[in-house]
């Protein structure tokens, strides 16, 4: 019989799991290249792709917020200000990888290629998930905090068992790192060496609760060390750094080196959702200071400074974003018709007789109210 425990540790030096003391960045707030960044600068093509997707993503996001004001969406949690994380992480994924997003990450899901109208089905109130997860390798957007982290680990572990080259990236917020499922997921992934990337967007708040009330750790990335997981602390408003860190973690996972925890420091510019009043827990000055660190401005300054982007290209891209937003507006302004029978259709693989009866009860009720 093989006994694996207890083994005396040969070295308890945690150095290889620890993040850097300050967040890694490739571009500073002014778009200048950071020397000795500790990350690999993405190619110009990637930087241009990031820029393009950030412009489109931000416009999608503001359009979604506008749709709440017109009553077309029940609610929308904006990711404005977090575009580097939302887009950088997704662009670094390969087609065969999986994304496990949260309610915050509609922008990321759209960047992965899912039709925005399908994405918004949830918030429009039509159905809980409007897209086919297998079609895009995007799990349904997850609302119960941190629960998606375990799904990512399971999916990635299954991929390893099946011999597939698939990495799962799970998105989490700073608040979600306090949930038990985050810890269980980090631990399972580390023990199993699962090909998973834990991508934590620390935007400073969980609704109204600031990070200081959430964690006493030196950083959220430090949580990796307790599980024996390499961790990175990065500037979450630097699209180049996010891309580089995630691409590195994906490559390591795909090479069999196991999971990585990445904490991206960022800020949510809008309120938690359109229904939230952020003035109750933070002041304008704080928001202004983060506007000065805008991820799009920084990337754009870098690209224009190097002559990779000019005013004409930016204008053309803005026009494209406007066209997309107009198309989305138009498609979202159509009243959808829901079939109430669908409420009973997908509960089990085969409908139970009792659900069939309840479906008929509702149908009768609807027919009677139509007659009146």
């Amino acid at each position, binding site marked *: *019989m093989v006994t694996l425990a207890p083994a005396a540790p040969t070295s308890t030096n945690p150095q290889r799991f620890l993040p850097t003391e300050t967040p890694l960045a490739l571009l500073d707030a002014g778009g200048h290249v950071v020397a000795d960044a500790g990350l690999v600068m993405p190619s110009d093509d990637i930087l241009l792709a990031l820029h393009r997707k950030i412009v489109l993503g931000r416009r999608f996001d503001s359009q979604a917020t506008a749709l709440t004001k017109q009553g077309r969406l029940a609610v929308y949690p904006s990711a404005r200000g977090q575009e580097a994380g939302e887009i950088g992480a997704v662009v670094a994924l390969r087609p065969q990888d999986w994304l496990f997003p949260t309610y915050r990450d509609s922008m990321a899901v759209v960047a992965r290629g899912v039709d925005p109208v399908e994405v918004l089905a949830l918030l429009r109130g039509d*159905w*809980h*998930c409007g897209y*086919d*997860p*297998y079609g895009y390798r995007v*799990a*349904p957007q997850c609302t*119960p905090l941190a*629960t998606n*982290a*375990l*799904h*990512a*680990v*399971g*999916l*990635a*572990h*299954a*991929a390893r*068992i*099946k011999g597939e080259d*698939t990495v*799962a990236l799970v998105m989490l917020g700073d608040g979600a790192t306090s949930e*038990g*499922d985050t810890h*269980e*997921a980090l*631990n*399972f992934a580390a*023990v199993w060496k699962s090909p998973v990337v834990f991508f934590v967007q620390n935007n400073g708040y969980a609704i109204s609760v600031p990070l200081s009330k959430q964690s006493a750790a030196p950083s959220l990335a430090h949580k990796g060390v307790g599980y024996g997981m390499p961790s990175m602390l990065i500037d979450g408003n630097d699209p180049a750094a996010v891309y580089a860190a995630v691409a590195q973690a994906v490559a390591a996972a795909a090479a069999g080196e196991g999971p990585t925890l990445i904490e991206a420091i960022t800020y949510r510019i809008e309120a938690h959702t359109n229904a939230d009043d952020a003035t109750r827990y933070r002041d304008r000055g704080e928001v202004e200071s983060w506007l000065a660190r805008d991820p799009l401005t920084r990337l754009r300054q870098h690209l224009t400074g190097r002559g990779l982007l000019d005013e004409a290209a930016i204008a053309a891209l803005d026009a494209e974003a406007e066209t997309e937003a107009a198309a989305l507006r138009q498609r979202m302004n159509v009243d959808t018709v829901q079939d109430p029978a*669908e409420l009973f*259709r*997908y*509960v*089990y*693989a085969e409908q*139970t*007789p*009792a659900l069939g009866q309840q479906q008929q009860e509702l149908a009768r009720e609807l027919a009677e109210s139509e007659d009146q």
Partner: protein
Amino acid sequence: MTTLTDRDLEKAPIASPVTMAGALNRALADALREDSSVLVFGEDVGTLGGVFRVTDGLAATFGEQRVFDTPLAEAGIVGTAIGMAMNGLRPVVEMQFDAFAYPAFEQVTSHLAKLRNRTKGRVALPIVIRIPYGGGIGGVEHHCDSSEAYYTHTAGLRVVTPGTPADAYALLRQAIECPDPVIFLEPKRRYWSKETTTLQHTAATLDRAVVRRPGSEVTLISYGGALGTALEAADAAAEEGRSVEVIDLRSLSPFDDETVAASVRRTGRAIVVHEASRFCGYGAEVAARLSEQCFYYLEAPILRVTGFDIPYPPPNLEEHHLPSIDRILDAIDRLQWQDSSGTVKADG
């Protein structure tokens, strides 16, 4: 315990004595052998073979990749099973004891039960969660809960519990093949009860109740750990001249209205027998359904013989809590056998 080996299997179908734990073990082994997507994991299920030895020998036979110990975290076990099922595997996971499944409750109710519906049928989760449940084994606190109602109240889950070794085998095989998530409740006090039977992978019983003992005057509706008590009570009642039918529900969700209502329409009297507490317990649903469906056939109110509405008692007091033969016989006596003129009805 003895584990049934391949050689024993080949000898089938000669009837032989088998415990419920042995039958479950063989169901897992056969499923692992026949379907390479089946995985078995949980706490101590690998090297040890589970604290009840239900997974005994499986890791040695099928390897660490398919039968393995996880870190000690129940939400982690169910949550990762969900991810694995999303990626085409069929996890069969073990919760070590009923009350230790509670940390996984969020994963069970918010995801396991809902993902098919959330995705309009695109994502199926063919997962079985095996949970040793119920009392009667002298277990200390947290080792004896009957938690079925938490699960049956959750749409999207199937909840199954075997009452005999033969059913344990057949139902577990079907549960593993089922495209829906199944909460598979194993009555601990029946793990070591033996039956001389052939274990068969029979079809189409996963959501059907079965009449375990035919009778004409009263229907006892029971399942899992209490089933044996109900059957003994029926025998005792027969000695007193009462003809008692016993139904083993097997599937707590979905509920087999057809079989149960047909029996109660015939007998006109019904008692639900379960270990779990009475208030908002499973028996309340059974009684409500039957009064909706069989009102005109009923000679008496539907009664419940259940555990009390108390936290599960300590071992030295549990006998007072569990439904007993006497308590069932008393309930049968209370089924209004006399009409208003005081004459005893029917042939009772």
